[in-house]
């Protein structure tokens, strides 16, 4: 039997589309993740504009009550499950194997499977719009609201939501297994755990969270499915079930999911700040331990979403929630002292990273408000909570995503994005974001509940709602310079070269875009900044690929 030895660079021709559909290259799959996530981001964004349009003035203008419920449910579902989580997984997919000097993920075909479940899941969830109504019980789908009975969620949309999210969850779990095996088994020689770049560390902790939390969510929605379709009685008190049980199993996943949505963004910012401050990250190990601590504490705070149920032990969950502020505060020290006395280069990735720092800080502070039990009793289910969650998920995650996009776009495409358009986008987004969500604090404090389509014109909420709506459309407008920028750059952008930002980590040691097998040669790895060492250190004895074997 003949033995065929394939050189890693063996060229195989496949047509463009077929190549993208069948690819198992982690970089192409990463780009697929990112593009797919942006498509769902725009769908979720249009839904958000519908919500803001309806709330601009009192009264029902464009949506009915039922449609409004569907729209805000789909908005949150798209943004959480099909934008932020997979977008960050996309960065992990593209960048992490490069950062640890691996040729690909550990299981490339499972990687492709993980990706392709996402568009299918998203499609099923949205399919409700043409089958008589999507899920409408909020992204939390509390029981008995989400049960199939009068005043509940009676359509097939809720079932499509369950099936779609089961697919998305399975995709996350398989992805997490893949990330973990890759990180534990595929690191280049010399890449010890404490030399791993911070994005890789946050991918590692995120994958552990996904692995332990997502299956519980899957079990929760499957039990909901059994209740709705097979006559089960898990969550419906009318049938002897336990409604609080659903909230427990749901939040056991969905609170760690908050960290799934922020840790990789924190990792991204921690890659960008050192590069644009021309300094190493201040307190590398402290940052790593803080990340691990956030992941671990993240499993003991879920019931702070359930303070007002009266069914959870308030002091414990309140204390644990406050404790999360400690490792998060450590990270703020890391970030601020990384920039302190650095040679700051004000480029778009840095602007978005600073946007992340400031906005996420506000989200952390108003989160600490809500962690206090008596305050939470007053604020529960008001717009204050909406303000808080958008300051962490938009001000945090989305600003982090934009920072990462501007930072790694040259690596992914080989071309630079335009700085002027990038700064215009940042200014529009920053102003629009604060116009939209800052007034929501005040609305919440004055008692406006979440998830209402209409409000009294005499409640005193008119002006702030109008401001929020104008802000919302400003955010939407900020997407125009982004899309134009990407279009221009792909058509005629400046050539990026291997290392346009003078980066520290291994993804900058290869070409832009990298070859399918990632590296022709790797620099020696003697610290967490191998590319910095190779650039500034004594002439390194770089290892090259030999063709003798």
């Amino acid at each position, binding site marked *: 039997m003949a033995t065929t030895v394939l050189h890693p660079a063996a060229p195989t021709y496949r047509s463009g589309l077929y190549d993208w559909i069948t690819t198992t290259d982690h970089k192409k799959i990463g780009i697929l993740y990112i593009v797919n996530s942006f498509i769902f981001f725009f769908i979720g964004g249009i839904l958000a504009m519908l919500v803001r349009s309806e709330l601009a003035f009192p009264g029902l203008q464009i949506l009915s009550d039922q449609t409004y419920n569907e729209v805000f449910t789909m908005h949150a579902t798209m943004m959480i499950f099909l934008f932020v989580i997979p977008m960050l997984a996309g960065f992990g997919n593209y960048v992490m194997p490069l950062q640890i000097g691996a040729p690909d993920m550990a299981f490339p075909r499972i990687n492709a499977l993980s990706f392709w479940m996402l568009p299918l899941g998203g499609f099923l969830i949205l399919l409700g719009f043409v089958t008589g109504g999507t899920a409408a019980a909020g992204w939390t789908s509390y029981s008995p609201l989400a049960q199939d009975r009068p005043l509940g969620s009676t359509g097939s949309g809720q079932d499509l939501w369950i099936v779609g999210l089961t697919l998305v969850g399975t995709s996350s779990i398989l992805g997490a297994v893949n990330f973990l*095996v890759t990180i534990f088994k595929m690191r280049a020689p010399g890449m010890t755990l404490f030399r791993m770049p911070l994005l890789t560390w946050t991918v590692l902790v995120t994958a552990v969270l996904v*692995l*332990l939390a997502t299956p519980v969510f899957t079990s929760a929605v499957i039990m909901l499915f*059994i209740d709705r379709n097979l006559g089960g009685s*898990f969550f419906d008190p009318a049938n*002897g079930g336990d409604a609080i049980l659903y909230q*427990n199993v749901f939040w*056991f996943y969905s609170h760690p999911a908050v960290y799934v949505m922020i840790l990789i963004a924190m990792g991204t910012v921690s890659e960008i700040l050192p590069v644009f401050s021309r300094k190493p990250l201040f307190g590398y190990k402290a940052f790593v331990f803080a990340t691990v601590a956030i992941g671990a504490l993240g499993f003991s705070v879920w019931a702070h979403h359930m303070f007002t149920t009266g069914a959870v032990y308030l002091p414990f969950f309140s204390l644990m929630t406050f404790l999360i502020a400690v490792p998060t505060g450590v990270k703020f020290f890391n970030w601020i002292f990384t920039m302190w006395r650095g040679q700051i280069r004000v480029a778009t990735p840095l602007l978005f990273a600073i946007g992340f720092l400031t906005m996420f800080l506000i989200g952390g502070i108003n989160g600490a408000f809500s962690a206090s039990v008596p305050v939470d009793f007053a604020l529960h289910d008001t717009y204050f909570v909406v303000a808080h969650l958008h300051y962490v998920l938009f001000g945090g995650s989305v600003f982090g995503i934009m920072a990462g996009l501007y930072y790694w776009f040259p690596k992914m495409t080989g071309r630079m994005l335009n700085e002027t358009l990038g700064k215009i986008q940042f200014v529009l987004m920053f102003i629009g974001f604060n116009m939209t969500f800052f007034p929501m604090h005040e609305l919440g404090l004055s008692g406006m509940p979440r998830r209402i389509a209409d409000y009294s014109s005499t409640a005193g909420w008119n002006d702030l709602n109008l401001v929020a709506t104008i802000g919302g459309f400003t955010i939407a407008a900020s997407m125009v310079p982004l899309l134009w920028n990407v279009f221009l750059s792909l058509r005629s952008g400046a050539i990026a070269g291997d290392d346009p930002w003078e980066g520290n980590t291994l993804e900058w040691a290869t070409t832009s875009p990298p070859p399918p097998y990632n590296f022709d040669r790797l620099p020696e790895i003697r610290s967490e900044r191998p590319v910095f060492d190779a650039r500034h250190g004594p002439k390194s004895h770089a290892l090259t690929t030999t063709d*003798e074997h």
Partner: protein
Amino acid sequence: MTTDEHALATTEHNPVAGLSHDSTGGISNVVLGMLLFLTSEVMFFAGLFAAYFSVRAHSPLWPPLNPETSEAFHVEILPLVGPATVLLILSSFTCQFAVWGIRRGDRVAFVRNIAVTFVIGITFLVMQAIDYAALGSEGLTLASGPYGTTYFTLTGFHGAHVFGGVVMLGVVLYRGMSGQFSARHHDAVEAASLYWHFVDVVWILLFSLLYLLPGKTPQG
């Protein structure tokens, strides 16, 4: 420097060739992947078990009486469930014998033991189906209140995992019979065996919970 030493050094230090496979020894990618996947499976069943305990705690009487006959449902260890449990536990042993066999390179012992494990798996599923039919004819179904819902969901998802395991064992058996495994290359066998042990352990927990844990009365 001899030629052999040089070749070894190249493999170890070649940044590309050294990475595509695990060169440092230790657990293989496939086995580690399966262990991590099983971790997520543990959490999935943890969610279902949590639901069981919660629903049970909210019920005044457990197990509840059959509303038609006012007697207890016949969820009993004999004649089917006990023997099925013994069989499933035995199958973990035969599965492990198969793994030990292929680690020694003994393909005959390996194929025989996997075949026995595979047959036991199918037998377990058949016995479970017969038991389900008997309970159904008594009126205990997924839709007959919290007891039926939790009973059939827990055992049903376990059964689905047994089915998955049987499929894996079938693939391993087929590949083993066509000689694809050896003492050095049998990651799939190790992984399938881990999965099968997991399925077995879940059943032991489920059996203890559903058949051995005393019920509760309104006073207790």
